[in-house]
């Protein structure tokens, strides 16, 4: 009897020790992620300014559907997403395959150079890009000198080019980041697989699509999900390069939420509703991405 008791207490003790290691992290994540998430849901059914809030049911959600600024922000965000994320992932994949070539010289230099943009803060590089792409900025000066354009491109002030500028900026900042994931995954692939393919007469592109892409699929899925989540929350770049302008041509959903809560009349309830649209989009897109990746697995 006594023995079982002490066994129980030893077991309880080890269970408690295990939990004590993870407890602080669990509490912090619940307090600073899940609890605010629940609060935002409650807020999304309330309206009013500042802290004078009253429940109004689904009013905010119906307002969302007829809110032109919201619709423009969603459209802009999806343009960034659909153009930039595939472009960046293909580019990062392509560069990492080139850099994985064992005969390549100056490998370290290329790798470091292409990864370098990741050390900059989003704000710092945004300000640099804002000046590079200004009407009289260096990019236009160079394009004019090389006679590639006859008049300066309105990178920041034209609705179309402003979006292109944002896309160029994000691609510059994040391609190297994604490349590192692919590079480390490529190093785990056994070289003999490629040798066997070469003996069978598979071309470089066949090897790429037949071996590299399928083997990297989990990492490609991971990077496309993180990039999608990142792009849906795009804020720093747009805020510091174009301020969302011209008009609302580059404004993102996150920026609209910020404006609703801290720039206009502090409409926390409606801002929370807008923020839930991002939650729903992330959930939907992640499910789709998992499905697509899963289906190809067969």
């Amino acid at each position, binding site marked *: 009897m006594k023995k079982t008791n002490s066994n129980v207490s030893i077991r309880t003790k080890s269970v408690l020790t295990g*939990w004590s290691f993870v407890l602080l992290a669990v509490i912090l994540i619940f307090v600073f992620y899940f609890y605010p998430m629940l609060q935002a849901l409650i807020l999304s059914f309330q309206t009013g300014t500042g802290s004078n809030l009253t429940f109004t049911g689904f009013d905010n959600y119906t307002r969302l559907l007829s809110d032109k600024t919201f619709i423009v922000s969603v459209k802009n965000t999806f343009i960034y997403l659909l153009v930039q994320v595939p472009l960046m992932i293909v580019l990062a994949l392509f560069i990492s395959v*080139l850099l994985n070539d064992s005969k390549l010289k100056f490998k370290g230099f290329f790798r470091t150079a292409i990864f370098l943009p990741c*050390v*900059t803060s989003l704000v710092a590089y945004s300000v640099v890009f804002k000046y590079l792409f200004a009407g009289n900025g260096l990019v236009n000066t160079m394009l004019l000198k090389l006679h590639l354009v006859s008049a300066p491109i309105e990178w920041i002030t034209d609705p179309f080019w402003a979006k292109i500028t944002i896309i160029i900026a994000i691609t510059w900042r994040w391609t190297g980041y994604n490349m590192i994931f692919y590079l480390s995954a490529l190093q785990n692939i056994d070289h003999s697989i490629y040798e066997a393919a070469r003996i069978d007469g598979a071309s470089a592109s066949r090897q790429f699509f037949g071996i590299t892409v399928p083997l990297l699929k989990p990492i490609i899925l991971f990077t496309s999900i993180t990039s999608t989540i990142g792009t849906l929350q795009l*804020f720093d770049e747009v805020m510091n390069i174009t301020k969302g302008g011209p008009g609302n041509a580059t404004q993102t959903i996150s920026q609209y939420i910020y404006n609703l809560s801290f720039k206009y009349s502090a409409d926390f309830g409606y801002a929370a509703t807008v923020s839930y649209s991002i939650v729903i989009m992330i959930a939907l897109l992640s499910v789709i991405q998992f499905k697509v990746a899963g289906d190809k697995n067969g």
Partner: protein
Amino acid sequence: MAKSKRFFLYLFLSIAAIVSIFPFLWMVVSSTNQSVDVTRGRLLPGTHLLDNFQKLLDTTDLQLSLINSAKISITTTLLALLIASLAGYGFEVFRSRSKDVVFNILLLSMMIPFAALMIPLYRMFGKISNVFPWMGIDTMTSVILPTVTTAFLIFFFRQSTKMFPKELLEAGRMDGLSELGIFLRIYLPTMKTTYAAGAIITFMSSWNNYLWPLIVLQTPQTKTMPLLISTLGSGYAPDYGMIMIAIVIGTIPTALVFFLMQKQFVAGMIGSVK
């Protein structure tokens, strides 16, 4: 044929490298030039570095922002490493079915957009301000607390713990070390590369954080480097040389941390991806 392929390979990589490096070079070169020369597109180093620096010191509170950023980033990094490594170790070493469930729930937090958290968090710290002003809005604590624990870092440490030799753990228990003792005296020193990679990730994201500090830090006394750079960049008659030196100074810490720990970073990342 093979030769021309090689040529295009190097050409492509060189263009990619130049495009990646160019904005850096331009920013460094511009920090040594006068504002007019920057707008004229001067690409050669000038002699105005000290002038620009002096102007920056005169018009902004650079030291204060640097100190604020350093305090926040260093505290965040140390706390984040401690909390996440304890948790990652705990989830892996004391594995149980219920802990796996909790771990999976934590991972879900990675999907939560910050946009959905910022308003409730802001209101939460507003309420805290009424009771404990020292940890409410406009304090270091309010910047650190919501960002100090991420599921990603816990996941990162858990993955790496899988490679931690369990024999060391048994040896520690045989020697009569407490569980915390094993963690501090055996695990921590063995997992140096993991800690280094975790430190780089956390320090960089903390030093560069913009949106949350923008919301919660409201007085000039609490401004961090990204906030300072952002306000400089939003002026109507920008002094380009001065702004560029501010950006260079703001980038040095993260660049330094990265280059000093690059090897460990890559090693740590590979360990977690496996």
